[in-house]
């Protein structure tokens, strides 16, 4: 496996006193991925038992490709499998967040201001269809979806 860390630095002048103490505290951001590659990383703070990272095998890759409407040719499957496996393994420490899990953040905007509903003229149909590869009668044309 190729290394993914950056060279540790000598940044230990006065203003980074806290940084120098870092080894005894939580993981620095830059080390997290590399550390997460090591089995048993942060076992003591696991919210749940350590789970084996899912195996990204060819059937799973095919399922993901089908869901994503992608065609992965056979000569690219090995490289994709290797990359996905490495990434998912490196991200696995995220499954071990401290308890209790807080509410999720799906968007950083707490409350966008509401506005009155106002009908606006839509974009002209011809403008919207101008980029369509195939169109007819003011509509998009696609190949057959269902059997006759």
């Amino acid at each position, binding site marked *: 496996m190729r290394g*993914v860390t950056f060279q540790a630095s000598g940044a230990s002048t006065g203003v980074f006193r806290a940084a120098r103490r870092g080894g005894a505290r939580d993981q620095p951001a830059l080390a997290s991925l590399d550390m997460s590659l090591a089995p048993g990383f942060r076992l003591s703070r696991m919210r749940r038992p350590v789970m084996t990272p899912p195996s990204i095998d060819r059937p799973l890759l095919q399922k993901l490709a089908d*869901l994503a409407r992608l065609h992965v040719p056979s000569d690219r499957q090995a490289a994709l499998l290797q990359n996905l496996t490495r990434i998912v393994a490196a991200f696995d420490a995220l499954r071990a967040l*401290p308890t209790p899990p*807080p509410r999720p953040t799906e968007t950083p905007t707490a409350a966008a*201001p509401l*506005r009155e509903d106002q009908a606006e003229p839509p974009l*002209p149909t011809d403008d919207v269809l101008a980029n369509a590869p195939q169109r007819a009668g003011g509509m*998009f044309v696609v*190949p*057959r979806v269902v059997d006759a």
Partner: protein
Amino acid sequence: MSTICQSSAATIAGLVQKGEYSARAVTEAFFARADRLDPSLHAFLELQREAAFAAASRVDDQRARGEPLGPLAGVPIAVKDNLVRRGLVASAGSRLLETYRSPFTATALRRLEDAGAVLIGRTNMDEFGMGSSTENSAFGPTHNPWRLDHVPGGSSGGSAAAIAADLCALAIGSDTGGSVRQPAAMCGVTGLKPTYGRISRSGLIAYASSLDCVGAFARDAADLQLFLDATTGVDPADATTVPKPTNDATARTDLRGLRIGVPWELNGPGLDDDVANATTSALEVLRELGAEIVELSLPSTAHAVPTYYLVATAEAASNLARYDGVRYGARRTGTQRCEAMMAATRSAGFGAEVQLRILLGTFALSIGYQDEYYGQAIRARELLKNDFATAFTKCDVLFHPTSPVAAFPIGSRIDDPLAMYLCDALTVPASLAGLPALSQPCGFTTDRLPIGMQWTAPAMHDELLLRIAAIYQRHTDHHLQRPAP
């Protein structure tokens, strides 16, 4: 004419307003410089001469009629290829959108034009914003003006290179996980990622909607205030936009009493030596200018990179579903069935990194894995937001390097996605929390590549960042250094 190309946006607008330069003359000067230098940089995918001269003529005509000119009158601005303009191509660096012409103009660009700006062309980028080096553009990499065989950073690398080489007076980018700040650092210019929601995303080709922000590059931090003033505010076309804040940072004229938070996790371990030394020296300067240094911790940043890449790829997998060969771009023909056509079109149109991220996002959202991956990521995002909130009870702004490394050679990381993702370790935390952040030059490596330092402020305090950056500039000259022409 080279002098005008090295002037600040504010200076150019002043000259045009006073009639000392026509907007057309300014535009011609920048196009002449781009014609000379861009063949070796590849910062631009297209110089849009016809539209630019039309805009410049409108400014000159306004002045001839005695009408007041906008604050960006005649200022040539380069625009990242993922912001759309009516009738012009915007491809997001993707082969799939190579011929796409938008039926409308992005709100941010419309507001810039309303302020008198002249949009001169679209700049190169990693496809759909997915990359940290601009090597993932379908149209070839951009070269760093400081060293042509090095990357400019990414994904807004074309905009960063264009401003660093004086090919424009302001450059617009977008920042999802650091795509303005990281290339700003690598090209030796100043880059602003505003608070999420301050600038409309309408007309920004989506990558990850809860993270995407329109941002900008300038050589002079004060120019970014002009950009922010022109573009910020509520837009009915983007429900996440927020009103202009009432807080005013103009009263701050020095750094005395400013509490600068230094999170150890982002300042020490893992940095390149030159980066660590430059930011340490910058911090000493800031202390001498009267700032108070507060050491603190942001523990959840340990999870920031996985959190970001799971949230961003999950949103990307959803956002990019629209490129199905039906509504936009080229369709891969030769199949009789709709689903096969979609898969063939997407596989031929998307580059390798985009396909990898779509597959990763699909994995994170798929049944059996959603709660373990995407669910955990959005919970970790809340932990990170809480860490920032706690930190800002102890300090006014946060300080750390922008990138753990300076610009690296083209081709040296492109085959290792994880190594590339780590380049974003210092920029994704502010993105996940929706906070304003700014990168500005603070030094050079021993082999003379630029290094950037990063500021982060509480939400809606973008102006404070711009004031601090301007004050730092008054006392240093890193921002005045230029690559050899």
